[in-house]
Structure formats: structure tokens, C-alpha cells
């Protein structure tokens, strides 16, 4: 029965032809010590930081432009209108509201009631 402790020998046996070739070693060293590749490698390695810096720059630029626009625009003045207050006069004697023309609401009501009564009397006749 194969044991897990044999794993190393199994893998070594299976990957016997996976070795560092002189070409691979040379290419790697060349990539490490070539300045042109170094720039690209730095970009690849720090792309996240660069993205963050770029985002902050864009944000700062947007806020700056916004502030600049606000300072050149004429100041807006907010005109507040007086709230409308309905005025109502009350007849102190009868305690009923009085119209603007001076007539008491109850006067009209009483007048209407009189007309109604007269009509009923006429009908009975």
C-alpha cells in the first residue's frame, strides 16, 4: 500500500523531466537585469497603487473644477415669500364669521330661511 510519505518520491519520479534548463535560467536573469523589463515589471507589480493614485488625482481634479465653477457663478438669492394668512373677522355678539363685505354669515342664513318660509306659506295658500 502506497503511503503519503512516498508522495515526494512519486512526484519526483513523475516530474523527473521538469528541471530548470540553462535557457530558462538565462532568460530569467536577462529579464531581471534588463532595465526595459524592470519598468514593465514595476508597473505590473504596483498597478494597484498606481490605480489608487490615479483615482485620487481624478477626484481632486473633479472637486477642484467644481469649486472653480461655484466661485465664478453669480450667487443665488433665495427669496422667501410671506406665508399667506387668512384673516377672519368674528362677530363678537353672535360669535360668527363676518365676510369682507361686512355681512354676517348668519344674516344671509336668516334671510334665506325667511324666503324659504314665505315660499312654504304661499304653497299652503
Amino acid at each position: 500500500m502506497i503511503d503519503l510519505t512516498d508522495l515526494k518520491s512519486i512526484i519526483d519520479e513523475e516530474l523527473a523531466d521538469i528541471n530548470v534548463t540553462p535557457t530558462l535560467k538565462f532568460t530569467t536573469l536577462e529579464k531581471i537585469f534588463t532595465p526595459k523589463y524592470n519598468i514593465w515589471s514595476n508597473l505590473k507589480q504596483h498597478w494597484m497603487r498606481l490605480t489608487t493614485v490615479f483615482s485620487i488625482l481624478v477626484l481632486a481634479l473633479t472637486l477642484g473644477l467644481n469649486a472653480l465653477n461655484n466661485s465664478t457663478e453669480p450667487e443665488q438669492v433665495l427669496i422667501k415669500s410671506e406665508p399667506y394668512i387668512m384673516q377672519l373677522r368674528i362677530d363678537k355678539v353672535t360669535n360668527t364669521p363676518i365676510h369682507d363685505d361686512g355681512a354676517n354669515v348668519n344674516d344671509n342664513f336668516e334671510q334665506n330661511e325667511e324666503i324659504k318660509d314665505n315660499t312654504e306659506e304661499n304653497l299652503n295658500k
Partner: protein
Amino acid sequence: MESIEKEIERLIQDYGNDVLRIAYMYLKDRHLAEDAFQEVFIRVYHKWNTFRKESSEKTWIMKIAINVCKDMLKSYWHRNVSFYEFEDIYKISNSTNDVEIEMEKKSLLESVLRLPDKYKDVILLYYYQGFSVQEIAQILDTTVGNVTSLLSRARKLLKESLEVIE
């Protein structure tokens, strides 16, 4: 400059094969493994000055190697382009007469490679690279207790998997 070049050459000489093979175990493709190998030693070169020698060189390089492999596996291109068969990674030697042993070896390797990443990490680092539990904890940025429990669960999973195959 010359001294660091010699240092990198020495590191490639000492740990190159381990890096290439572990990359091959993860990426299952020779060309990708070679790309990972190059990326590992480029990162080693860039981070060499920050290496505080709190762990061994091998532990530090393996940590970089595993991170590079995982980054490559996570990349959009790798997730969407699959051009290899899993079976490509192993081969049965025709020179061996004992077919049964070869089949057992094949099953074991296949089961290890089919393990979920977190279990595969600990099994390969412990049984293949020969790291201690403490070193594995350093490599994987986790606790010793977690590594022990992962190892135990990985062994259990492997046992179950091999029983099913048998």
C-alpha cells in the same frame, strides 16, 4: 549589482527546481510553470532587500511561488482559457513491470491534485517540500493550529478518495 546577480543565480541553483515543480503542480502546464518561475525570481530580486531572514530562504521563496501561482490561477485569462487535460500531469512509466504499484501511485497523485486548494497546499508543502507545520503556517500566513487541522482533514479526504478509487 554584481553581488545581487550572483545571489539570484545561487537562489535559482538551490531552489529553482523546487519552484518550477511546485508551479507545475499548481498550473499543470510546463509553459505556465516557466512563466511562474520567472515571475517568482523577479519578485525575489525586487524584494530581496526587504527579506528580513526571519524565516529560511526556501520558506520565503516558496511563499512567493505559491502566491504567484495563485495569482496566475485567479487571472481572468487562466480562468477562461483551459487548454490542458488534467491527465497530462502524470504518466505511467512503461519500464515498470509492477502495474499495480504504478496504478496506486497514479491514484495517490491524482487524489492529491484533485484536493481543494487549501488542502493541496498543506499536503504538498508537508509531504513534498518537507516543511514543518510552523514553516507552513508562515508560508500560508495562518496559525499552526489551522495548518494541523487542515493536514488532518486533507489526510481524511485523501483516504476517502483512495477508498472510492479502490
